[in-house]
């Protein structure tokens, strides 16, 4: 079996904020996020940082029930032509229009694993 697991993180810090790591396989493969988790045989996989800012394609606020807090989810488009899904942080007064700028920010998954989320970019902060 010639199978290798990708071990790097799916996000990284950059000078202007947090970036996500997309990947592109060899040949005609499109850029994808999340990054390709496994590499087969001699496949060459290029890593491409995206962000820290993207454009809000769509979102929803989920209301899971009486005893649980609502949470946001979003689809965010990044310049090289890739879409990422993740949590959307809900801040009072945030601009959540479709087409608005959002940025990648640190977030912690319920199991404690370090992850990413999106939040609206405040006007004048772009």
């Amino acid at each position: 079996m010639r199978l290798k697991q990708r071990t790097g993180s799916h996000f990284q810090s950059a000078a202007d904020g947090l970036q996500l790591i997309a990947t592109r396989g060899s040949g005609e493969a499109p850029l994808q996020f999340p990054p390709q988790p496994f590499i087969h045989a001699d496949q060459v996989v290029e890593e491409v940082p995206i962000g820290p800012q993207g454009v809000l394609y769509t979102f929803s606020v989920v209301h899971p029930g009486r005893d649980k807090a609502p949470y946001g989810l979003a689809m965010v488009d990044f310049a090289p032509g890739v879409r990422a899904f993740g949590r959307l942080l809900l801040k009072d007064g945030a601009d959540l229009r479709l087409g608005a700028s959002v940025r990648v920010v640190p977030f912690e998954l319920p199991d404690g694993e370090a992850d990413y989320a999106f939040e609206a970019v405040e006007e004048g902060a772009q």
Partner: protein
Amino acid sequence: MTNPLITGVGISDFGRFPHLTEEALAQAAILSAVDDAGIALRDVQAFYCGNAAGGHLPGQRSLRELGIAGQPVFNIDNACSSGATALHLALQAMRAGAYDTVAVFGMDQLSTLGGGTLPLNQNDWNNRRGMVMPALYAMRATRYMHEHGVPVEALADVSVKNRRHGAMNPIATFCKLVTREEVLASRLIAEPLTLLQCCPAVVDGAAAVVLSTRTGRGQARPVRLLASVVQSGIFEPGVVDMTEAEITARTARLAYEQAGVGPEDLSLIELHDAFTISELLYYEALGLCERGQAQHLLNSGATSLGGRIPVNPSGGLIAKGHPPGATGVAQIVEICEQLQQRAGQRQVKDARVGLSQVTGGGISGVDHAACSIHILSI
């Protein structure tokens, strides 16, 4: 080769039956379908079972107490498309000459799962980050409303229509008539979708059909299968249009081609209205109207009973509920009963050709993992 026909149909009540089992519900549907076909269970040469939430060997668990004589049983899980996929595979086997008579059934019992949204695979990237099926469709709704200037009332009207249909369906035990205002005032599930814009999450049910090349013993006229198509989702990591139901449009094109009919030839449709927005997106994907025009088609009354092309005369998933293994077969049962002019109060006048569409989702990177479309005719 003699083309197999649907010679018998059966369906259980759809509702909350935690005191029953999914096996018992399946048995009720199977016995009803076999009786409708005018045959005995021993005449069935193979069984195809669609099930999504019941674990291992649901088909054999259902059939052992019915005294089958060791005939092959095939279990098929394709999420919400399980039952329709089972029908597709049964048809393939019959057309290859493997069997003369088979039974296809599907069932699930969601009332024993503890409520809430359908459980999804938590190894999936999106699901691990909080994705649930209502949220996926809510995001599609948000984008669709943004692009086409569709008000939330248009979504609510789908629920009103389908529950109006479902109130005439005796097996839809969970269905109640609702107003637009009640739909919009029900509690939020995933904005902009409210509770009454989602199919009930805790419903049990089963459905079955008998396929045979030997006809003449059934209680109703046999139904022909003009098309049976199953497709899978294409991995699309780019900036795709989430308001286009790509897999449904692709499957529909293949089904229309196979059947030699177009959307203008259809008398009725049973489609996968798990959420109100789904029905609007599928009007467009099935070619009933142009992109962005679904709300106008709905408002015109064309998709209501009595209209040009009634959609979900059974009440659909919104009115009946959605035990995923059963749904695809239940749609076929409804279309057969409509084509055979035995749909009671909800009968579509002069029904000649019907289409069923059901998807199967819950994984990231694709529009849906599966889509099945069947076109039936009398």
